[in-house]
């Protein structure tokens, strides 16, 4: 899936003043790319990812997915886009604490109409791919950070989306677990052709992507 941002700005109101989290961003990401976004804290990386993933709307400018302007689509349509076209991986994992690993993965599959045995089979398979077949019935609180993030990857892949958005996916992990996560994302990009957009602080990790976008003060550095 091709992603295009045109003149995208996002500002937040902070009392009397505005914070310009993004200023007139122009960016094209081709389907199948592996891209890292780096930059100092507060430079707008998360805001950029949220806008790409339709979690947030730009104050001005347009988001174009496969040539379709989705900026002003209804919440319902955007929800469906998030469900089927994006897989999200967050720094804090954001698994649902009351659901087991299996249920966390099955939830978006079921939401997309995949209930019943085939949907459940897919959830099990995905957990198998990230090496957690033996942790299906565990609650997130019973899993290590690395395991939780692997469940999150399985969940992100639930509906086989063309694009994976990962916001500092290794921020909470030790180097060993970080390596597993990054390897998994790189494998996904290489083997299945999924676009992977990853925010990271770590220049080592960033260097493993073909493309690196550096941000500062809501702008992309050339």
């Amino acid at each position, binding site marked *: 899936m091709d992603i295009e941002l045109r003149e995208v700005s996002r500002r937040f109101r902070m009392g009397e003043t505005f914070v310009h989290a993004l200023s007139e961003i122009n960016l094209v990401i081709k389907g199948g790319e592996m891209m890292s976004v780096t930059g100092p804290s507060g430079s707008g990386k998360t805001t950029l990812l*949220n806008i790409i993933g339709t979690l*947030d709307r730009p104050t001005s400018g347009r988001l174009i997915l496969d040539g379709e302007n989705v900026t002003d689509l209804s919440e319902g349509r955007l*929800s*469906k886009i*998030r469900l089927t076209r994006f897989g*999200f991986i967050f720094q*804090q994992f954001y698994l*649902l604490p009351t659901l087991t690993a299996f249920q966390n993965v099955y939830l978006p599959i079921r*939401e997309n109409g995949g209930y019943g045995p085939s949907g459940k089979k897919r959830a099990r398979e995905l957990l198998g791919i990230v090496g957690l077949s033996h942790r299906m019935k565990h609650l997130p609180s019973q899993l290590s950070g690395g395991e939780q993030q692997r469940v999150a990857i399985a969940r*992100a892949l639930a509906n086989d989306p063309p694009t994976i958005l990962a916001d500092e996916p290794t921020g909470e992990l030790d180097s060993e677990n970080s390596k597993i996560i990054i390897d998994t994302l790189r494998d996904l990009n290489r083997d299945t052709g999924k676009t992977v957009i990853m925010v990271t602080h770590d220049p080592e990790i960033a260097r493993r992507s073909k493309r690196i976008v550096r941000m500062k003060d809501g702008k992309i550095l050339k």
Partner: protein
Amino acid sequence: MASGRLRRKWARNILTVLAIAVSFSMLLSLSSISLGLHRASEERLSGSPRDIVISSLGLQPSIENSHEIASELKQDRNLSAVMPVLTVLGRLALDKGHEGDVEVGDKISLKEGMETMTVGMVGIVPDMALDFMEKENELFIRSDLLRFNGWFSEGSDPFHGSNYSDNWTGELILDENILDEHGLDIGDRVYQVNGSGQICAEYTIRGSIETSLVGAGLTAELLGGIGMVHLGELQWATGNHKKETPEGMTSDLANAIYLNLDESLATTDAKRRYSMMLESRFPGLEVTSKESRLYRIDEEVLILEVFAVSVAAATISIGLLFLSSIMIIDVEDRKADISIMRAIGISRRTIFLQTVRDSLVLSSLGAVIGLIPGWQGSSTIDAFLRELYGLNIAFSSFEPLVFMGSIIYLFVLASIFSLVPAIWATTIMPGSTLKDLRNR
């Protein structure tokens, strides 16, 4: 920390379920009472209670010349049956050692150790009573059914006919329970004991009455049973044949005259008119019917029904308001989770339905728990109303219709009351709280 939160949720969920259980049991019992009352007044219309009772206002028999009045009324073509009745609480002594014959006018002291028993004595004129029988051997008096084994051989009231001097029949038809309890048989003799503790009359048991079908349970239990004799003989034995009162000499006293209207008059209106006519003819006496008692209920039914329905509606609303606020707290608690769900593409619809479903699950649990107390409450109120009106009819109708109706009512209301939390849950945006989450 997580387990602590879970425990706290547990507690409040149990409380919510209990609140719903309480209000649901209230809804159940009150709606079964409502329906039962409805049925009771329907019964009044569908059945043909043709009975009217002219009765003394106090406990003392005060209808004078009862035989004469009854015969007069019997001429009235509007009436199919007429019968004067004297009911007194009497004491009977058992003839264990063959005490010998008791002649009219004798007053014999009770012997030491003689077994006595309290019996509800009913004096009737047998032939007149026959007119009340729709089936052979079965006498309907008010809502009570008496079934006879054996009957009086003398159909008239000859002792009264001889002006209380001759032709004593001594025929007695006694409650089966009494026969069983005291080992008595048909043909055995018993004596009537008067107020001064003297034997004054002699009866021979001629038959038995099955009274297990008698409605008013309380009186039956207190008395142990009833005994039926000729009216004149009971009058004589209890001093009601002639009695001196401050107003002068009275005679032939009875408590009540039972009447059955002719089939042609068995409409509510005609009956009421006839009752009013009787009232003016017998001032100082009470004219009632099963119908009039039901009529009284009818007027009160509406008030009771309105009351029951409003109380039920109020309690169920309170229960569900409780549910509603708990669900709002729940949504507040799950704000972060909902935000995550929205972020990964779970639709508002799913989140809405999830909240409604949670409400319905709690409501269902409440309904299950409230079922037994609801039934209990309904039968308690039923018993109370039976006592209050002295009628052996079902005031509560605890049936599948009530249960299903209440369940549907509960679920519809629970859905409506969960709208606020459910809609509120859908307003939680995907991105917004993720930021908050990050900082928590």
